[in-house]
């Protein structure tokens, strides 16, 4: 085959006159994967779609790319259709959504086989082999909704690569994946490279970029900030932006509030005391026999792979979910002072009214005046005027900070942050978490953090509950 390299020559994506991505030249060779990192909105995903030919028609593309010895005009979207699956493949974002919910997994993998037609037995066999190879032999006759996120990711990988494409474009594969699944995925991608494939990965996860090695491209505001070998860019960056990006990884955090952790009084009356609680949906247990006490000022993390019931446990502790067995008890000061931050802040505000109107109800109820709101907003780095907008007119990071302000108004004793930053990119995560923890530290309230990111858990909390696949909970007290 001739697909032993990919070259892109000056690819520009525009919406109207605004450039959304502008990349001069890049090249991928066998054995040397390319990873593009950057915050959301930096245009890295658009670049991937521009190469694939799947950009929406409103966006204009210029430039060209060369696969092996064939040159393609990027503006001609349909010109690359015949390559899809055969020479050019894409592993989509959110693999759980990329699988047809009404079809058995086996068929969805098989249909990517070269020359597939309905009722193709050979393709089914091939699909089975492929799945078996990925340790998913049993998943072939399952429906996607029964798969975990990591399994869905591997099924999608099988479906994307069964057609034999050498060039694989991977778009934000780490979204919502726990570290274990991410590792397995990285192994797969590395194997693809080792087999002589070309790999272009789009991610905001620096750990993945490090694992993949090869070359790294850092993008910001539609253009490339820095490029070079991964080992150099990701350890000794030359630009400020990359430096900031690296510093935003939770493992490298250093904030004043991190020192505050020891202040909690281990003998104080618990705010929340759960004894032997068990919860199951239907026949499936979510967690079993968990006991936990949270005292004022303590910072707890609930960690574990995705789908093990971290959120359900958190909700149970806030009595938002009933438990099947066991008890959840509160101390006297707790009533009305347990607050929660949500994974998607947009869903936690009434969607059709301006923020201000929703906020005024909170202020009135909890006797907070405008000055307090203004100062709280100031502390998280937002102007008061931002409240005149509707939730959908504010970015995710800003909205989460407004949610933090809202949660602080009733002077809470415990805040339950449910994957509150998992949808945010590194820099925004850092700012948001800093805002939250500054408030938490300042008010002395306790924190219950649900996250699948162990680094974040370590950086922020001093107690951990790790939920395992076996429905058990492992308590790891103060470090």
């Amino acid at each position, binding site marked *: 085959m001739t697909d032993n390299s990919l070259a892109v020559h000056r690819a520009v994506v525009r919406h109207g006159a605004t450039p959304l991505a502008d990349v001069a030249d890049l090249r991928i060779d066998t054995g040397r994967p390319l990873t593009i990192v950057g915050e959301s909105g930096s245009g890295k995903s*658009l670049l991937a779609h521009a190469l694939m030919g799947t950009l929406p028609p409103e*966006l204009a593309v210029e430039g060209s790319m060369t696969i092996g010895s064939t040159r393609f005009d990027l503006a001609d979207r349909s010109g690359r259709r015949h390559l899809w699956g055969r020479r050019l493949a894409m592993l989509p974002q959110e693999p759980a959504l990329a699988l047809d919910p009404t079809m058995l997994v086996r068929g969805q993998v098989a249909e990517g086989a070269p020359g597939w037609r309905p009722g193709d037995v050979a393709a089914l066999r091939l699909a089975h082999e492929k799945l078996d190879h990925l340790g998913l032999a049993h998943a072939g006759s399952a429906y996607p909704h029964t798969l975990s996120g990591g399994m869905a990711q591997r099924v999608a990988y099988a479906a994307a690569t069964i057609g034999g494409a050498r060039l694989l474009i991977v778009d934000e594969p780490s979204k919502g994946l726990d570290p274990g699944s991410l590792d397995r995925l990285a192994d797969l991608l590395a194997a693809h490279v080792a087999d002589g494939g070309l790999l272009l990965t789009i991610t905001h996860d620096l750990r993945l970029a490090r694992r993949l090695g090869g070359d790294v491209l850092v993008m910001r505001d539609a253009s490339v900030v820095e490029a070079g070998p991964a080992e150099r860019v990701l350890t000794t960056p030359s630009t400020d932006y990359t430096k900031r990006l690296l510093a935003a990884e939770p493992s490298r955090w250093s904030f004043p509030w991190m020192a505050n952790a020891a202040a909690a009084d281990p003998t104080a009356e618990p705010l929340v005391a759960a004894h032997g609680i068990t919860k199951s949906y239907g026949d499936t247990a979510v967690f079993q026999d968990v006991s936990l006490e949270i005292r004022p000022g303590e910072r707890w993390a609930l960690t574990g792979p995705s789908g093990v019931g971290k959120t359900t446990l958190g909700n149970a502790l806030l009595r938002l979910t009933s438990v099947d067995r066991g008890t959840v008890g509160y101390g006297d000061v707790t009533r009305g002072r347990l607050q929660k931050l949500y994974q998607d802040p947009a869903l*936690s505000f*009434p969607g059709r009214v301006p923020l201000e109107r929703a906020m005024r109800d909170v202020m009135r109820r909890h006797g907070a005046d405008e000055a307090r709101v203004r100062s709280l907003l100031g502390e998280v780095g937002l102007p008061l005027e931002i409240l005149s907008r509707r939730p959908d007119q504010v970015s995710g990071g800003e909205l989460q900070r407004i949610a933090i302000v809202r949660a602080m108004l009733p002077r809470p004793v415990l805040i339950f942050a449910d994957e509150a930053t998992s949808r945010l990119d590194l820099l925004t995560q850092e700012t948001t978490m800093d805002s939250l923890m500054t408030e938490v530290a300042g008010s002395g309230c306790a924190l219950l953090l649900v996250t699948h990111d162990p680094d974040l858990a370590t950086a922020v909390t001093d107690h951990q509950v790790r939920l395992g696949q076996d429905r058990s909970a492992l308590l790891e007290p103060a470090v």
Partner: protein
Amino acid sequence: MTTSLLDVAATVAGRSRRSTLARRAAALGLVALVMFAIVGPLVLSDPAAQDLSRFLEAPTLAEPLGRDDYGRSVLARLAHATRLSLVLAALCVATALVLGCVAGIASAWFGGWVDAVMRAVSEAFVAIPALLVVLLVSALASGGSLWALYLGLALAQWVEYFRVVRARSGLVLGSPAVEAARLLELGPVHIVRRHLWPDLRSLLTTLASLGMVTSILAMSTLGFVKVGLQPPRAELGLMITDSFAFYDVAPWMSIAPIAVLFLLTICFLGLRTSEENR
């Protein structure tokens, strides 16, 4: 992510521009029809007054829509029929809407046995054919009274509102936003004002305008099968049905009520918001 956002934004903008125009036209048309229904019966002659010597007279300047087979003024009858259709449909929709809304929200809010009972009642209603309800109620009241028609149509429709409102309220009430409001102890008034009502409003507008269409069409349809109103009351469906026999000799008799019926329904259909046009 970015791409799909742009994608949606672009189409929505294009659509809503077109749809505001359509909605404005629809509203204008409705205002005209409502004016006709209000003013017409006041200034026009008695719709029941016959002039048997002038049956099927063609349109003239004095009688712009001609006369029907009893020599009655088609224009006057049309005005009364339009008024009847509008008023009765509005009453039916209002009743069904209030009933369905209250029941639906209560069902979603309280859940448990309230929800179970409401759902059982609504499922039973769904299984009982609407036609049977209307037929029985109007037979019960005999003599084609307006009340029977109103009650029958309202009873036949409330389930629709109940089901939609219950489902939507269930979603809203189960959303993180309401969960957060509960944690913030903002109380039921806040939840209704800031969460439920803003969310249900456009849905209900759409449902209500569709309900108007359904009611108006149902009334005319009942007129066609001779259930419902009694002569000499002017009703659009009856007028269309009666005029059908004369479609070739006196087309004005058919065209006028058909046009009004069509305009009424089209205008109400046009009032719907763009994103919910089912």
